[in-house]
């Protein structure tokens, strides 16, 4: 026999709790859906939230800029103490190195003079490097996902996107976002970083690729296949127009690997102060220069002396009708 009698009513407190749990589950589901929609938006338009990100950077970068000052000071004191203990042996090594360097310098000076004369004869035109700003690396992500750093300089100091960031020891990365007082730098070690480089000794070109680890990989090598040696210096090639040529990226530490491993020359997290330079050869702006307002002139009209079609902003052709306002 089935029992068709009405089930006992749940107490109010239990009902309330169950309803709250249901609402909470629905809200959680909605929140997760919102997150996935945001990700899809980011896929469609990678610049989604760039303004908010820049504003958040503007808030956090000055905080870390102030907070890390005493930390830097303490690290410097510890460094001085360490230097004191190794001073004598280091002085001997440096004296020997200085002798060798002086000999090389004399040769290099003569070669530089000769090169300058040749460039003058050939009328070579070279863009020059220009420093936009010198700033401190205020904060950096040390987690595993992305390797970016924040500079305490932004649009107000002339720092924009896609500018090379160079430390005292070598290349650090390039700017990818800029707020008014801060900028985000994509470090060389980030998995998305690719820098056109050449092996200084052989002239072989390639790409220095980050992989989220402290070292880089030398990939996509082109040119004569000269075996690499441990200690080969890897410098920027200047291809791509962002990084100036000749900036030290690192040295080869594992030349035998299929993808040779490069040790970074400059540690971005110990760099503290870095310079942001103007892009070496900025990519020409291929955005449309403005709509064409003048309609194509028919052949018959041209035969009667009508001017050729032109852009609104173009200089008026002498003797023709006035340009549209």
């Amino acid at each position, binding site marked *: 026999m089935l029992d068709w009698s009405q089930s006992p009513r749940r107490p109010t407190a239990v009902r309330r709790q169950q309803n709250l749990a249901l609402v*909470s589950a629905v*809200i*959680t589901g909605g*929140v*997760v859906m*919102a*997150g*996935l*929609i*945001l*990700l*899809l*938006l*980011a*896929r469609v338009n*990678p610049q*989604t*939230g760039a303004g*908010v*990100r820049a504003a*958040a*950077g503007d808030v*956090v970068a000055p*905080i*870390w800029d102030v907070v*890390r000052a005493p930390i830097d000071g303490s690290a410097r004191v510890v460094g001085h103490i360490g230097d004191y203990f190794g001073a004598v042996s280091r002085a001997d090594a440096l004296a020997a190195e200085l002798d060798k360097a002086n000999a090389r310098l004399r040769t290099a000076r003569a070669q530089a003079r000769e090169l300058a004369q040749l460039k003058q004869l050939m009328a070579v035109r070279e863009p020059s490097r220009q420093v936009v700003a010198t700033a401190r*690396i*205020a*904060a*950096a*992500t*040390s*987690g*595993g*996902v*992305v*390797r*970016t*750093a*924040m500079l305490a300089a932004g649009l107000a100091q002339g720092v924009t996107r896609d500018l090379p960031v160079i430390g005292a020891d070598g290349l650090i990365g390039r700017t*990818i*976002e800029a707020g008014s007082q801060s900028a*985000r730098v*994509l470090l060389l070690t980030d*998995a*998305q970083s690719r820098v056109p480089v050449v092996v200084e000794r052989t002239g072989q070109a390639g790409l220095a690729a980050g*992989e*989220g*680890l*402290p070292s880089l990989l030398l990939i996509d090598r082109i040119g004569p296949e000269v075996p690499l040696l441990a200690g080969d210096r890897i410098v920027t090639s200047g291809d791509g127009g962002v990084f100036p040529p000749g900036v030290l990226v690192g040295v080869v530490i594992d030349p035998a690997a299929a993808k040779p491993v490069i040790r970074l020359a400059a*540690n971005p*997290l*110990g760099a503290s102060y870095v310079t942001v330079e103007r892009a070496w050869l900025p990519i020409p702006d291929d955005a449309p220069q403005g709509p064409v307002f003048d309609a194509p002139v028919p052949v018959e009209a041209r035969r009667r002396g009508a001017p050729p079609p032109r852009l609104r902003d173009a200089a008026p052709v002498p003797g023709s009708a006035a340009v549209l306002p």
Partner: protein
Amino acid sequence: MIASPPPPALLMTPVERRRWLLSLWRYAVPVIMCAGLVILMLAPLPLPVPAMPNLALMGVLAWVMLQPALMPPVLAFVVGALADLLFGLPLGVNATLFAVAAGSIRLLDLLIVDRSHLVDWFGVSLLILACTLATGPLLALAGRPLPVLPMLWQVLTSMIAWPLLLRACVAMQRRLARSAPRWSHG
């Protein structure tokens, strides 16, 4: 408890209402602490490997365990979105993961009532590993696929740091409970 329940609003005296308004900040302590942990993760540490623990996620998980009402998945989503903004990730990666992680802990609370500290530690470690592994597909969904291997350093350091962070959150909760305003009802 971060603050004891106040008397009904209509029955409050002006002094009580003022005390109640001045004590409202206590409810925001978990979120503020998690936001602080996100900023702490930006410390430019000269680490040889990407080993900064995922303090923000652990903070969210700790507060979901200690004060579930003060760290609902919506607030976890907000903390995650802040992390996305500050870490330069596509908006939604950490936001989604933090919200799902907070929901998972709530589910765990329903399934296993009396858990030991070790079970908590094991569960949180698994959750952090799952979140880390899920980061790759989510980034790929946003059009930025990244290798997962370097992130395992972060999982390892997060597992080690969990007891310390939980202890810090418990200490914060105790401090807040000690200084909570007392209400004389009725």
